[in-house]
């Protein structure tokens, strides 16, 4: 429990940079304990950086950050205090696991914080009950609505009763009713645990009014730090958004004027721009849009409001013809919408949610591309005029990805109006854009509507934007629950604000059907004081929590599971049959110029061989060349005129053999076969004539050890086992870690008590298990399918295999430390394992024949040693004790690789 004397958070001179970009600049502040604080500002002003530093997810670069009395730059103090902090990062359910159910997510977090089974059950039940999630314990987190995801995130954060609760934009993209429920929930938590400090970021500035303190941020600096009332009083503004704009430095406010929307001239000619009748869209059993109808006149600005996932985007896609409707119809300008209709497309401009232009193209290239696709001149007037009008001139030759969000949105709008459409469909064009840029954007929309009579259909989250529309539609759970001019809707509900009106309509709609959760009982004790759990440096429980979670996720991902299970089996078949060094069924043809019994006897030798297949005879040299070129034959035997006669007369005739050298390996093998057959012909002939050939001075007797038949399968199969057990397990293990980096759940490593070793071993364990299954499968295939028996110690092979996959999965973990995207993890690991495994580990060439760097890589790669175990156990017939040395060598890689992983895997973000 925090003593009141210690402030919850104290920052002094804190700065943070991302390369050259400034995240935070010289921020100092003190937040007392038991306070509620809201941080407001648009995207990219430093809110998330600030929270990451306070939660201990980011490394303190400069200045001091002290949280609950602990210095966050000190690893020991940080680890100790992190059990008292809860952090919910930005993004709907970003630190949750989408494939896991509500219950499974909660159990995972409870284990991370060391709760035992009884505590866990009690806490989870209480929290589920209180948040209204109790009816859906088995629903996957990814299938929850935005509001429910955030409630689940909150449950996960509250499991361990933190003293400091940090919520980064918990209500962005959540419908107004869920938003209100969420804040009520926070109030109740505070009521049951008054000592808890709550720190919240939001881009809905008006939400901040219910907090004790408000911090306003801009460009990495603090604009204001005061009570909401004091901020309003100081600026003389009516609401916090206006106050924020008023507090902005002069240059950031440039061009900002209070936007007024001139009334629409009622010259409607009766023909509707858009008309939807009974529009419905289903995805499987899920109805995304349910019987939606509306009619929009020309030049009207029509607003569309609702939470994420309520069907706004689906409706808009149906309006543009991107998505066919399941039922109902859409009429644009009086005609039906047909997905293939090019003429309609020229009359409509569409701006998809998020930035969906080519980020890798420059602003000018984007404009030119679209101009050309619409058959407009790509130079001159139109593009120049548009870039001037939307303030894009300074950015024309910059790559779009690097531009500020507001500029990219203006570019999107410029592209959408490039071909002068009569109607614009804009899907959340202002999400995340700062208030000044938003007002500028709206000024453009108003001008388009009022001056050029362009019909505008726009969806938004912001109520003050909705208020500017001629009419708005409230959408919830796939249905339009109210349509009308904003003022009329507000009056209809007798509400003070449009927000309240929306909630009023939602409650009425919810009364007709089952709500998203019954109103929570007031008595539930949401937060309790409990004795601190003993801290352990290494906890098997946390390790197993990660291992269990990883296996669950793997089981639910069909592509990864397929690769993990059938990948090795399939590749083993391919390699087993594909890389064979046995050269057989060689096609040959004969040019027999002699046609004597002797020549036929000579050819007979080849005919009878199992290595060769005889093709039709060759007539002349030209045909021979052509047959070689077409790869019809690999070998031609030319018996000269007078062969039989010369042979009978002992004049040593000479046979000419031509071999196709295009494939050198095949040619060398053919050479060997030909020499053998020729030799046999001579001995056979000698014995049949009773001649003794002169004995050689000495003979060399070649003995093929381990594999008398010299069958390439016997040598290949054990090698393939070694190769596949490094390739696939390492890629999957690398993906396992990098996936968390990319999806954001790696934050849980940064801010929970789990240590890096627990994290790594926990992630590794399922892949060791899978790889062991693969090992068993491959050994089984080798014995039954390929007929390669284990001549030596099976126990040694299996033990060696287990040790080997532990090393190869550790190698995958090591690769994940170097890569930050899943794509890089797959390709990087594939290249990094394939080359040493195939070329330097003794698969094709013995390591003893390598030199220099190749030898060094071969010696320092685990496959080299397992290859000896595998070949030794399968083919060489080595016993357990013979294999033990190699097993020990393989095992030595495990601690080294894991130690490297520990060094390279950071416990904090940069």
């Amino acid at each position: 429990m925090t003593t009141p004397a210690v402030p919850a958070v104290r920052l002094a001179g804190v700065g943070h940079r991302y390369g050259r970009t400034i995240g935070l600049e010289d921020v100092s502040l003190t937040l007392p304990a038991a306070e509620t604080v809201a941080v407001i500002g648009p995207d990219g002003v430093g809110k998330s950086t600030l929270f990451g530093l306070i939660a201990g997810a980011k490394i303190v670069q400069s200045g001091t950050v002290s949280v609950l009395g602990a210095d966050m730059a000190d690893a020991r103090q940080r680890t100790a205090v992190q059990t008292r902090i809860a952090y919910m990062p930005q993004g709907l359910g970003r630190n949750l696991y989408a494939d896991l159910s509500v219950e499974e997510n909660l159990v995972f977090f409870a284990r991370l914080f060391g709760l035992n089974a009884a505590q866990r059950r009690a806490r989870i039940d209480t929290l589920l009950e209180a948040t209204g999630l109790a009816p859906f314990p088995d629903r996957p987190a990814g299938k929850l609505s935005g509001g429910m995801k955030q409630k689940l995130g909150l449950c996960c954060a509250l499991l361990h009763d933190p003293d400091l609760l940090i919520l980064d934009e918990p209500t962005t993209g959540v419908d107004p009713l869920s938003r209100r429920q969420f804040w009520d929930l926070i109030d109740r938590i505070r009521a049951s645990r008054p000592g808890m400090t709550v720190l919240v970021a939001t881009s809905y500035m008006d939400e901040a009014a219910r907090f004790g303190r408000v911090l306003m941020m801009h460009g990495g600096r603090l604009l204001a730090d005061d009570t909401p009332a004091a901020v309003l009083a100081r600026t003389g503004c009516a609401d916090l958004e206006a106050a924020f704009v008023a507090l902005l430095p002069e240059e950031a406010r440039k061009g900002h004027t209070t936007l007024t929307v001139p009334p629409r001239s009622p010259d409607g000619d009766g023909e509707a721009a858009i008309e939807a009748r009974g529009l419905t869209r289903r995805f499987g059993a899920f109805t995304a849009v349910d019987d939606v109808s509306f009619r929009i006149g020309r030049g009207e600005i029509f607003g569309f409001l609702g939470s994420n996932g309520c069907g706004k985007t689906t409706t808009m896609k149906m309006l543009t013809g991107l998505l066919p409707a399941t039922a109902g119809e859409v009429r644009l300008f009086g005609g039906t919408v047909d997905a293939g209709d090019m003429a309609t497309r020229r009359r409509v401009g569409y701006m998809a949610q998020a930035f969906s232009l080519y980020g890798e193209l420059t602003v000018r290239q984007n404009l030119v591309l679209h101009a050309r696709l619409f058959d407009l001149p790509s130079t001159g007037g139109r593009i120049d005029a548009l870039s001037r009008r939307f303030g894009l001139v300074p950015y024309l030759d910059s790559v779009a990805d690097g531009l500020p969000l507001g500029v990219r949105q203006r570019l999107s709008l410029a592209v959408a109006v490039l071909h002068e459409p009569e109607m614009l469909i804009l899907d959340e064009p202002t999400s995340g854009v700062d208030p000044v840029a938003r007002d500028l954007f709206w000024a453009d929309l108003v001008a388009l509507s009022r001056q050029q009579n362009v019909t505008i259909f726009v969806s938004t989250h912001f109520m003050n934007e909705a208020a500017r529309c001629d009419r708005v539609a409230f959408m919830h759970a796939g249905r339009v629950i109210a349509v009308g001019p904003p003022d009329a809707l507000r009056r209809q509900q007798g509400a003070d604000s449009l927000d309240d009106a929306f909630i009023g309509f939602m409650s009425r709609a919810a009364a007709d059907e089952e709500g998203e959760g019954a109103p929570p009982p007031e008595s539930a004790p949401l937060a309790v004081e409990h004795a601190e759990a003993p801290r352990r440096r290494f906890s098997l429980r946390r390790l197993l929590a990660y291992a269990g979670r990883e296996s669950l996720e793997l089981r639910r991902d069909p592509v990864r599971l397929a690769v993990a299970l059938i990948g090795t089996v399939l590749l083993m078949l391919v390699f087993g049959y594909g890389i064979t060094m046995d050269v057989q069924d060689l096609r040959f043809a004969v040019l027999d110029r002699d046609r004597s019994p002797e020549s036929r006897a000579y050819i007979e030798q080849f005919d009878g061989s199992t290595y060769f297949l005889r093709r039709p005879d060759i007539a002349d040299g030209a045909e021979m060349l052509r047959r070689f070129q077409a790869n019809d034959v690999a070998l031609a035997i030319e018996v000269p005129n007078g062969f039989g006669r010369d042979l009978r007369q002992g004049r040593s005739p000479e046979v000419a053999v031509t071999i196709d050298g295009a494939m050198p390996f095949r040619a060398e093998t053919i050479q060997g076969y030909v020499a053998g057959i020729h030799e046999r012909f001579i001995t056979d002939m000698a014995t049949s004539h009773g001649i003794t050939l002169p004995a050689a001075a000495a003979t060399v007797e070649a003995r093929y050890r381990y594999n008398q038949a010299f069958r390439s399968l016997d040598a290949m199969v054990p090698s393939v086992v070694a190769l596949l057990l490094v390739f696939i397990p390492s890629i999957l293990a690398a993906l396992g870690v990098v996936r968390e980096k990319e999806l954001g759940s790696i934050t849980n490593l940064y801010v929970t008590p789990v240590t890096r070793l627990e994290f790594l071993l926990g992630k590794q364990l399922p892949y060791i298990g899978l790889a062991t299954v693969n090992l068993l499968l491959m050994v089984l295939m080798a014995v039954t399918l390929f007929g390669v028996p284990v001549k030596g110690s099976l126990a040694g092979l299996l033990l060696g295999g287990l040790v080997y996959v532990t090393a190869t999965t550790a190698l995958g973990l090591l690769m994940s430390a170097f890569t930050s995207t899943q794509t890089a993890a797959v390709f990087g690991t594939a290249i990094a394992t394939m080359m040493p495994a195939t070329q330097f580990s003794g698969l094709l060439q013995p390591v003893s024949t390598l030199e220099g760097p190749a030898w060094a890589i071969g010696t320092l790669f685990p496959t080299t040693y397992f290859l000896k175990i595998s070949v030794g156990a399968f083919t060489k017939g080595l016993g357990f004790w013979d294999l033990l040395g190699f097993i020990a060598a393989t095992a030595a890689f495990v601690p080294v690789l894991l130690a490297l992983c520990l060094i390279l895997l950071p416990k904090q973000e940069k």
Partner: protein
Amino acid sequence: MGRFLRCTAVLVGKEWISLFRDVFMLGFVVYSFTFAVYSQATGITHDVRNAALAIVDEDDSPLSRRLAEVFRRPEFQPPVPIATHAIDRAMDTARFTFVIDIPPDFQADVLAGRSPVVQLLIDATAIMQAGIGAGHITGLLDDEIARFAGREAASTATPVGIQVRIVFNESLNSTWFTGVMALLNNITMLAVLLAGAALIREREHGTLEHLLVMPVRPVEIMTAKVVANGSVILLLTGLSLYGVLRTLLGVPLSGPVWLFLVGTALYLFFATALGIFLGTVARSMPQLGLLFILIVLPMNMLSGTNTPLESEPQWLQTVMQAVPSTHYVALAQAVLFRHAGLGVVWPQLAATAAGGALFFAWSLARVRRQLAAER
């Protein structure tokens, strides 16, 4: 038609810009056509090189010492003398691939005409070296013993002579083969990856649906991807052929190279269409990578670039006939190694083209269906 060409041309330009801005992918492409080809060509050798050899000399005579001296670099490492009892351990640990065992009284027996036996123990698990190395060592030993015994003339007395002529690659330089085959494998790999990635990138960034609200048809989008990525790969193939294979590795390009490039262009239709197909199956780049391992890697391995097609079981050969890369590999080998002209390889050329056209049509149908069904 004019509209189709204009639209496709605009989109091709866009694809090129996108590709050139993707530094990671571009680096990978350049690596694959230069360093990867070179290292594969020089790395895996089918020749005997640097073989590890031990000699158990139980005779210790001038002859047995002479025998140890015939093994020289670069084919052989200097032979290591070991004791009889050390043979098993040395071979079990793969320290040596070959062990020569010279029996006691060997020189005396040779001189007395008793035709003694030298044992050559071969580690048959060292698949690449064992067979060829054994023949090589036997020959060297035979020659040296014959020279010692003063019987060089012995071999001329055979009743039938044989004259072996190797055509197309007289010195059996394995670099030529592995180098060209590495290039072929990388053509397939890059074509699939680039085209697949181009589709997935657009879907991940939402630009695909943006294109679809404009007057652009799926066939134009797909053709643009095939042409843009295919042309980059065709250009790099030419550069790699002359820059890496001919200049650095000394592969003689005496066949009609234009025919090979025409075949490659037709094949790229198939390979890029396959990439786009996989791009519609995979939801993300990592999934594309995993599918690549399951589908393209086996296709590459089995199409004849590693081992001759006729070494595969008959059923597999039949199956592989349905895969255009098999025909393309056959075409490339015939043209580049055996100097075959159009008159010889037209069946392969036709099969490659037909496979490409079929697969393009199929992928297009799938892209269309998916775009229609996507939310």
